[in-house]
């Protein structure tokens, strides 16, 4: 993957210039910090003070790009978030996307949302789990009810086509043989669920990617994998074994069982989803998560080096093990 132009080590001047282009020369940027666990993005948090009033914002910038990058470009993520925000679904308010006139980017700025995303902390206190599960299901129902025509710009993504073919395509780009993931793909090919209505799918709906505040669900984050397809994909990805964080019998992201999620989705007005359809998407999710980890290792050997990315490559074997044990019926 080709490196993007180097971002300056001190982003404050570039950020202040980008903010003043939009908010006027009186806007002052302060309290800038860089989040340390940003994954594949650079995340900056900062205040903007205008006429004596300060508000906190978040800047997210893509730090790598190239033909093997499966993630949506930031300007597309921004367009999705604008539409979802307009529909009243909890998402950080999109403020502006960087453009050619900025020294930062590609990326965008949103309002800061207060809350917790860390899975271990969220899963410690189980008292509010039924309520959170209900909010997650209700939010998915609202998301899946949006008019897919408003997101037609996602049609060109491979993931908006056949979900098995899209995974095979991504796996081929990694250029490393993974027989275990191929067994998963083949199983998916031979056990497809019945056709489902076409919806906007969040695509990365899992514990760690939503923010929980005092009032419960505060924001859905990480819109870099969104697509048009079956809403069952979001339910299955949430239930994928890797996102249970050790609470293995609470399939739905550690918050409740698979059946409880399906019931809550139905109760919120969603379609009746069969548990085996969700299981199909969980297996799809394990193949997909294995593929992402192998992809991080490719990035590592290609120069985007870090201990965590190096570990991802070898950790793929653990995901493959979970996949095979699930296909064998030993794991559920």
């Amino acid at each position: 993957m080709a490196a993007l132009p180097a971002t300056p080590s001190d982003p404050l001047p570039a950020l202040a210039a980008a903010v003043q282009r939009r908010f006027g020369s009186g806007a002052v940027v302060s309290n800038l910090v860089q989040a340390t666990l940003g994954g594949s993005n650079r995340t900056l948090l900062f205040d903007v003070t205008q006429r004596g009033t300060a508000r906190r914002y978040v800047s997210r910038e893509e730090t790598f790009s190239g033909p093997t990058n499966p993630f949506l470009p930031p300007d597309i993520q921004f367009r999705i978030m604008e539409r979802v925000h307009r529909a009243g679904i909890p998402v950080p308010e999109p403020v502006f996307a960087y453009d050619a006139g900025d020294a930062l980017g590609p990326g965008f700025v949103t309002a800061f949302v207060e809350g917790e995303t860390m899975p271990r902390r969220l899963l410690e206190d189980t008292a509010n789990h039924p309520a959170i599960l209900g909010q997650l299901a209700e939010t998915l129902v609202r998301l899946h009810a949006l008019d897919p025509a408003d997101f037609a710009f996602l049609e060109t993504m491979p993931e908006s086509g056949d979900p098995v073919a899209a995974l095979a395509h991504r796996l081929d780009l990694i250029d490393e043989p993974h027989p275990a993931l191929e067994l998963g793909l083949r199983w998916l090919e031979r056990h497809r669920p019945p056709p489902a209505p076409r919806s906007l799918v969040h695509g990365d709906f899992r514990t760690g990617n939503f923010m929980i505040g005092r009032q419960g669900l505060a924001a859905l984050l990480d819109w870099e994998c969104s697509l048009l397809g079956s809403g069952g994909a979001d339910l299955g990805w949430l239930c994928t074994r890797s996102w249970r964080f050790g609470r293995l019998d609470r399939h739905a992201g550690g918050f409740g069982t698979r059946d409880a999620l399906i019931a809550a989705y139905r109760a919120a007005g969603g379609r009746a989803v069969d548990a085996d359809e969700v299981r199909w998407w969980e297996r799809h999710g394990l193949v997909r998560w294995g593929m992402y980890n192998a992809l991080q290792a490719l990035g590592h050997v290609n120069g985007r080096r870090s201990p965590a990315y190096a570990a991802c490559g070898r950790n793929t074997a653990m995901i493959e093990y979970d996949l095979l044990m699930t296909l064998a019926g030993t794991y559920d």
Partner: protein
Amino acid sequence: MRDYRPDTADLLATVSDFLDRIGPDLPSGDRYQALVCQHLLGMVRREIEQGPLPDEDEPALARAIRRGACDAEWDAVFARVLARTVARVERVKPDHLSPEHAVRTSRSSPG
């Protein structure tokens, strides 16, 4: 006599002990990466103990599974891939294995 003291396992343990010692003083991002480094060192240690994985034509196997050529002998191919996956996990993180596969880790005996 081959290499002088200390042996390879000792070299790894030395780096690992050092990371343990400095870990608590690191900023949170680096502390996390130091933990990941311990995980990487563990992999190397187990890889040395267990020896290389046997050769296998995995590109051909992956292609055969993809085109459906293994459908008729699915169970046999599945068992073969599972065994190799277990061997990989034994190096990466043996306690990830379910009890039915975990017994195999006791076979490794250095020297």
